[in-house]
């Protein structure tokens, strides 16, 4: 738990992912990258020049076959490679749920530890770009319910970097959830290459009156809300989950126990908040809770409509007020 002296530089979330992939690939020859169009440019360009640097054996464009290539990655992971696969939009993970939930997640347990599945599935979630119903979802609520998976969702370039390196080194299948709108966002990253441990939340702001917990893109809005409420005399603590499974209940419950008010914010339809709140409520009797999540509709394409479905500042403030 020693934080080393940090050598910081400012890079984008996208570049942080690239750097993490590159650093790990240099370190470990067993790492291969796979995804649709991945070696040819890809939708969000995370690969950069990795195809040239590492060649077609280690950076692979797959056919459009989500369930198939995730299954290929499972078999590869069982036999000695450490694949990092990309699902181009998280919505398409629906196609690969069998290989993720019935294969990757179960192999270690059901075969009694004979095989491990060191596999990372990277995928961008989130709305806000007008892509419409099939390209905007946040489906992490499905994945945290699958025993055998770990699920992380970095909200800053530093966590993108540090968590991706940890995910790659983990001997379990890790679902690594990125956010489309965060790719260009810049932040400080430790150039010495520190890892961020899976399973540890981060307190982003200290406060005593109310706990706001979130992750990913919504974190920024949570911090804005904390400012707004702060100016009204409500002193908010803001917690970034970073890892969605296993949950850092200790940090969450400690905060909620202190503030007595717990608000969870997410871009999906509520599955993460449900899990977090039900655990916090069970652990901290008497805590006031509120969940702020997307409306229970598909996500529309038109910008003004999309804004109504995805939680915004007002919705979150409303949520906070419900606990006061």
């Amino acid at each position, binding site marked *: 738990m020693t934080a080393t002296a940090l050598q910081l530089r400012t890079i984008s979330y996208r570049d942080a992912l690239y750097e993490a992939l590159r650093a790990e690939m240099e370190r470990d020859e067993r790492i291969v990258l796979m995804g649709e169009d991945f070696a040819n*440019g890809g939708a969000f360009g995370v690969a950069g020049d990795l195809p040239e640097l590492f060649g077609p054996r280690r950076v692979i464009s797959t*056919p459009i076959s989500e369930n198939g290539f995730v299954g290929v990655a499972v078999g590869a992971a069982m036999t000695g490679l450490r694949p990092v696969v990309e699902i181009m939009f998280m*919505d398409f993970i629906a*196609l690969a749920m069998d290989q993720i939930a019935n294969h990757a997640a179960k192999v270690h347990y059901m075969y009694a530890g004979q095989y491990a599945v060191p596999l990372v599935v990277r995928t961008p979630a989130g709305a806000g770009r007008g892509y*419409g*119903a099939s390209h905007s979802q946040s489906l992490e609520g499905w994945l945290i319910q699958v025993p055998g998976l770990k699920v992380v969702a970095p909200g800053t370039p530093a966590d993108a970097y540090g968590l991706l390196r940890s995910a790659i080194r983990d001997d379990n299948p890790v679902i690594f959830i990125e956010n489309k709108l965060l790719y260009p966002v810049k932040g400080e990253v430790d150039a010495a290459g520190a890892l961020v441990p899976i399973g540890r939340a981060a307190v982003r702001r200290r406060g005593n009156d109310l706990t706001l917990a979130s992750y990913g893109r919504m974190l920024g809005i949570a911090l804005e809300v904390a400012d707004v409420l702060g100016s009204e005399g409500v002193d908010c603590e803001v917690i970034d989950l970073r890892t969605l499974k296993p949950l850092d209940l200790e940090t969450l419950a400690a905060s909620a126990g202190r503030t007595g008010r717990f608000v969870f914010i997410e871009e999906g339809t509520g599955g993460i908040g449900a899990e977090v709140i039900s655990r916090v409520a069970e652990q901290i009797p008497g805590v006031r809770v509120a969940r702020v999540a997307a409306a229970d*509709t598909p996500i529309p394409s*038109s910008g003004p409509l999309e804004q109504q*479905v995805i939680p915004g500042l007002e919705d979150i403030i409303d949520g906070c007020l419900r606990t006061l």
Partner: protein
Amino acid sequence: MAHFDRDQYLEYYRLMLRIRRCEEQIGALFSRGMTMGTAHLSVGQEAVAVGALSVARPEDQVVSTHRGHGHLIAKGAAVAPLIAEICGRVSGYCRGKGGSQHIAVRDLNFLGTNGITGGGIPVATGAALTARTLETGAVVFSFFGDGAANQGTFHEALNMAAVWKLPVVYICENNGYAMYTPQRQVTSVDDIAARAAGYGIPGRIVDGMDLLAVRAAALEAAERARAGEGPTLLECKTYRFSGHSKSDTGTKYRSREEIVAWQARDPIANWRAFLRAGGVPEAELEQIEAEIDAEVAAATEAALESPYAEDEALVGAYAATASPAGEAWLIAQ
């Protein structure tokens, strides 16, 4: 080709031109930041949409892809509600809820563009199951790309359609690329049509730049379907002149020579030359072109005058179901 069907041929010209001009307009609107999300243009592929759907009857159904504006227009869609949809306006075909990749037009039996690559193939097959079960006589036209032919849905759906002899025409628009990835890098066969052998159905390679070739193949396939003989797989070799989506120029991963060679086969320019050779005067074509230009300009204006939808984002996830008339609800037990 025996008979020069002048009126029909001019109508095909209008349709192809409407697609092209409409998509150019969509491209321009994208650059002005007026569209929602991205848009996938079918510039260069118009002969497939128009040729194939030239044999479709009004009651026939269409299931399309992410690259579906051409299919929409070829089935009869108007430009204004199409552009309005892409720009998120309430007068759009889906009131702005769908966006480019999710546009259905029930009145045209157009079951939707589809954002999931390969996702529409089973849906089309299901529409054909309805046609067979209810004996509606409808044929379903199922479009998809070369990349989609590697999805499991392609395999599963074609197998079912073949077993059940469903009235569906599968039309693979093979433009040689899935995004920036060339076909040979991800696809184990040169011709998607070769996969028909795996389902015991006819597979035909068609020149997708030749409207009449597409039409002839589609006609044969549709007749086969209507006769209860089952599905056909048509592979139309074509090319997109534009990038994959609006964030791509299409020039980084395709050589200049390749692009130029295909441009020489522009289905619209060639169709125009064919019409001229068939005796259609230059002035008549220019007149059509001016009309289409004016139509698209007016449609764009109308679309942009339409407001954004309001107050309906949060409704409509569920269809209203009537509670069972004359039946008692068993509430408690």
